[in-house]
C-alpha cells in the first residue's frame, strides 16, 4: 500500500490569485476504500477552495465520526481542523464560530453522523443559521461498521447481503428546507461539474449552507438493488438547473443557449448563474423547492443542484448582535473595561 503521494506535480499547473497551485490545497493520502465517493468530494473541495483563492489558514474544517468525518484529513492540510465527537460537530462549529467569526467553517458529516446520532444538533444548527458550510457525504449505510442501513437508506433499497430496507428514509434536503436552512443543495459525488460550483456558492453564502451529496459506498452499498449505487444514481439523477458560481467583479460570460435563465445575486455582489431545467421551480421560493423535491421523489428521481437559497438571510452573529471584531481578537481592556465601567452598568440596573 502506498501511504505517500509522490511530491511531483504537473510542471504546468496554473497558480491562483494567491500564487498557490492546486496541490497547496491537498491533504494526506486517503485511507478510504478505493473508489469511495467521499474522495471525489474531497477533490471537489480542494478544487473549489483553489478556485476561490481561499487562504488555507482562513478556513477551519470540522467533522464528527464516520468515514465522511475522516475526509478533512484528506483535503486542505494547511487549514485548521477539529475532529469532534460523533454527531456533535455542530456544537463545536458553533463555539468556534462565535469565538472567531472571521474564519470559513467547513463542516463535514455523514448520514449516520447527521441523520441518526447527530440529528438533534443538526436541526438546531440550521435553526440558528450558523454561518458555515455543512456537507453530508451520504451513502445510505454505515460503511465504517460494515454497511448496516442508515437512516437515509431508501425504503426498498437492497443492501449488499440482499436485505431490503423496511423503513422510510430521512430526506435531509427536504428537512433542511423545512427547518429554514438558508442554502440547500443536493449533488452527486460522481458529478464534479455540478458539485464544485455548489461548494463555491456555499462557501460564499452568508448563513448556513447545506449540501447533501450522494456518495456511493463502493464496498457496502454499490450493489444491484441499492438506491445509492453509482449506476442507480446516474440513471435517476435529475438536476434543477445547471449552474455556475460567478465571483464578484468577474464578467458573466456563460452562454447557455435556450432555456430559462436565472441569476441569484449574493450579498457580496457575486452571482449564482442558473440555467433552469426543472419546471415550476424558483430557487428563492421555499415552497416551490419543497414541491420540486417531492415531485422528483414521486417520479423516482433524485433531484440535484441548488434547491433553495435565501441570499439576504441574517446569520447567528447578526441575530445575537455580537461584536464585529472576533471575540478572540478582543484585548483585555475591551473584555474587562474596569471597575468604573462596572459601576456604571450596576448603576443602570438600580
Amino acid at each position, binding site marked *: *500500500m*502506498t501511504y*505517500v*503521494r*509522490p*511530491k*511531483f*506535480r*504537473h*510542471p*504546468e*499547473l496554473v497558480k491562483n490569485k494567491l500564487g498557490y497551485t492546486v496541490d497547496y490545497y491537498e491533504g494526506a*493520502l*486517503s485511507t478510504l*476504500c*478505493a*473508489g*469511495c*465517493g467521499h*474522495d*471525489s468530494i*474531497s*477533490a471537489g473541495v480542494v478544487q473549489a477552495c483553489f478556485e476561490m483563492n481561499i487562504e488555507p489558514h482562513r478556513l477551519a474544517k470540522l467533522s464528527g465520526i464516520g468515514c465522511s468525518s475522516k475526509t478533512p484529513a484528506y483535503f486542505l492540510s494547511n487549514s485548521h481542523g477539529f475532529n469532534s465527537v460523533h454527531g456533535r460537530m455542530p456544537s463545536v462549529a458553533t463555539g468556534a464560530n462565535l469565538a472567531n467569526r472571521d474564519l470559513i467553517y467547513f463542516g463535514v458529516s455523514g448520514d449516520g453522523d447527521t441523520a441518526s446520532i447527530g440529528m438533534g444538533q443538526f436541526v438546531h444548527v440550521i435553526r440558528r443559521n450558523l454561518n458555515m458550510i455543512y456537507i453530508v457525504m451520504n451513502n445510505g449505510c454505515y460503511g465504517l461498521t460494515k454497511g448496516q442501513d442508515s437512516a437515509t437508506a431508501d425504503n426498498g433499497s437492497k443492501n449488499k447481503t440482499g436485505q431490503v430496507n423496511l423503513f422510510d428514509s430521512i430526506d435531509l434536503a427536504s428537512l433542511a428546507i423545512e427547518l429554514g436552512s438558508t442554502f440547500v443543495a443536493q449533488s452527486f*459525488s*460522481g458529478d*464534479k461539474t455540478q458539485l464544485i460550483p455548489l461548494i463555491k456558492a456555499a462557501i460564499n453564502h452568508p448563513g448556513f449552507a447545506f449540501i447533501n451529496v450522494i456518495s*456511493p459506498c*463502493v464496498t457496502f452499498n*454499490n450493489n444491484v438493488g441499492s438506491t445509492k449505487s*453509482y*449506476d442507480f444514481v*446516474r440513471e435517476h439523477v435529475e438536476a434543477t438547473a445547471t449552474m455556475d458560481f460567478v465571483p464578484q467583479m468577474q464578467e458573466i460570460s456563460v452562454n447557455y443557449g435556450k432555456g430559462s435563465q436565472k441569476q441569484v445575486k449574493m450579498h457580496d455582489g457575486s452571482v449564482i448563474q442558473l440555467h433552469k431545467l426543472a419546471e415550476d421551480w424558483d430557487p428563492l421560493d421555499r415552497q416551490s423547492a419543497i414541491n420540486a423535491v417531492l415531485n422528483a421523489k414521486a417520479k423516482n428521481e433524485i433531484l440535484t443542484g441548488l434547491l433553495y437559497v435565501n441570499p439576504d438571510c441574517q446569520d447567528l452573529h447578526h441575530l445575537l448582535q455580537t461584536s464585529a471584531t472576533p471575540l478572540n481578537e478582543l484585548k483585555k481592556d475591551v473584555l474587562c473595561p474596569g471597575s468604573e465601567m462596572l459601576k456604571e452598568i450596576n448603576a443602570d440596573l438600580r
Partner: protein
Amino acid sequence: MKPTDIKDPEYFHKVVDCQYACPAHTPVPEYIRLIAEGKYTEAYMINWDSNVFPGILGRTCDRPCEPACRRGRIDEEPVAICRLKRVCADNKDDVKKLMPQGPFKTNGKKIALLGAGPASLTVAKDLAPEGYELHLYDEHKAGGGFMRSQIPSFRLPETVLDEEVNYILDLGIHTHFNHYVSSMKEILAKDYEAIFVGTGAPKGRDLPGMKGRDEGKANIHIGINWLGSVAFEHTNKIGKTVIILGGGNTAMDCCRTARRLGGENVKVIVRSPFAEMKASPWEKEDAQHEDIPIIDNHVPTSFVVENGKLTGMTFEKVHAVYDAAGKRKLVPIGEPDVFFPADDVLVAIGQENSFPWIERDLGIEFDKWEMPVVNEKTFVSTNKKVFFGGDSAWGPKNVITAVAHGHQAAISIDLMCKEKDMANDRPSPFVNLASQKMGIHEWSYDSEVVNDLRYVVPQADKKLTLTNRKKEVELGFDLPTGFKEAERCLNCDVQTVFTESKCIECDACVDICPTACITFTENAEEESDLRNMLKQPAKNKTQDIYVSGILPTKRIMVKDEDVCLHCGLCAERCPTSAWDMQKFFYNVTKVGKACH
C-alpha cells in the same frame, strides 16, 4: 478520436522513453530494477543482449536515453542511466557461462567482417552461435575499432575494453588483425556469403591550404590519428602549450589526453558559441575540471611559423547571428585577429568516411558525397552480398548506434543466407505485458517515487589522473549510491493499462493522480482539440495520449502519457481494477531468437 490500440507494441514502447530513444532499444527500466535488487549479473546480461558492451557503454555512451528520460520532465535531472549500466558491469559475477557456449555446430557459411569496431563485433556476436564462420579483419593489432583508438584509457580502461571484446572473439571468431584490407575486389573474390563493412569514419578533417599548415606540419596533428597513436603507444608526449581546434567529443578527448602527456597550458578553441558545441555537456565539464579553458567564437585564420617552427595560431573573433529560419551564421565582430601561442596544435574538427579501398566497379553504388547507398532497414548496399553498418554507413554517430546497426545487419545476413526476404521476413520484437498486482495495494515493483536529486559520480583525485594517462577518472557509483540512483527510475515500462468495460466512472483515478494525467471527457474529432479539453492540457505533442472507448456516461477516458509517474496510484485507488499496472517487456529480436 478512436480508442488507442494498445495491442500495437509500439504504443507502450514509446511510453518507455529511455528504451525508445536508445538506438538498440535496451530495456533500461528492467535492468535498473535488477540493479536495485542487487542482481548485477542479470542486469549485465540484459544489457549484453541489447548493447553488447555494457562496461564500455556504461563509461562512454552518448546517452540518447538520458535527455529522453521522463524524470527530466518532472525533476531537475534525468536518471543517471549510463552510469548505472557501469554499476552492473563493475559488480557482476561470472557472466561468461551465461553467454552462448561454443563450439557451435557449423552451417558451412563464411562471412567477412571488415573493421573490428562495435558494428562488426555485434554482427559477430549475433551470427557466431548460428554456426557461421566469421572472419574479422582489422588494420590494428587488437579489436575494438575506435573504442580502442579514440577513447582514451582514462575514460575507458583497456581491461574493460579487452574483456568485452574478448567475450565476442571467444565465440570462435577468426581474427585477421594487423591486416589492412586494401581491396574489396579481393575480399569479394573469396568464398564469403556476405561481407559486412564496419570500417567507421576514419578520416579526420584537416585545414588544407590554411596559411602555415605545411610549414608547421611537424607540430600539427589530426586529432583522431593522434589519439590512435597515443592509444597504441607510438606517441607519449606533447608540447607544453597546446591548442585544440574543434568543439566535439574528440576535441575533449584530445585536450584531456594532452594534459596527461605534458601539456600544461592546453586550450580548446572553437568557432561556435559554447552552448552550441557538439561535445556532450558532461565531457565539456570534465575538460574544464582539468583546467582546460574553452574559448568560443574564434575562427582559425592561420598557423604562425617562425624559423620553421610552429609558434601559435591566429584567430578571427566572431559572433553568431541567426536568420529568420534559425540558421546560424558566424559573423566577424570586426576586431583584429588574435594570436594564441602553441607548441602543438591538434585538429579535431570532425571526421568523415573514406572508401579508397572499395573499387567502384563492384556494383556497390556511391552517392555524390562518396557515401555508399545503403538500405536503412536492411543495411544492404546495392551489391546484395555487401552490407554496411556503424559510422561507415551514414557517417559518424556513436557506439550504441553502431551496435544497433550490427544487430539489424546480422538479421539481414542471416535471412539472406537462408534465402528469405531481408525486408519482409524480419522478426517482430519480443513483447510481453503482465500484471504486477500482488494484492489489494501491493505491486511486484517498487512503485514509490523517491524525491532524490541525481547523484554525482565520484572522480579520482586530479593529481593522480593528470599524471597517469591510464588512470580512470571516474570511479563509478559505489553500491549504496548506485541503489539510490536506481531508485530514482520511475519504472516507465510498468504501464497503466485501462479496461473500459470495468470502469464505474467513480473518478478515483482522476482525484488521486499526482500529475493530473487522467481526464474523463466527451470525445472530440481532432486530437488537438481533445488535448486542450483535458484537466491539464496535453501540450507536449511528442508524447501520446491514451484514449479509451466510449463509457456508459458517453464520455471517454483520456490519459496524457507526458508526465505520468507510473506510481500506480490510479490502479491502487481503482475499485474495479479497470486500471492495472502491467509490466511491458520489449526486446528487439536478434538473430536466431525469433518465434518459429
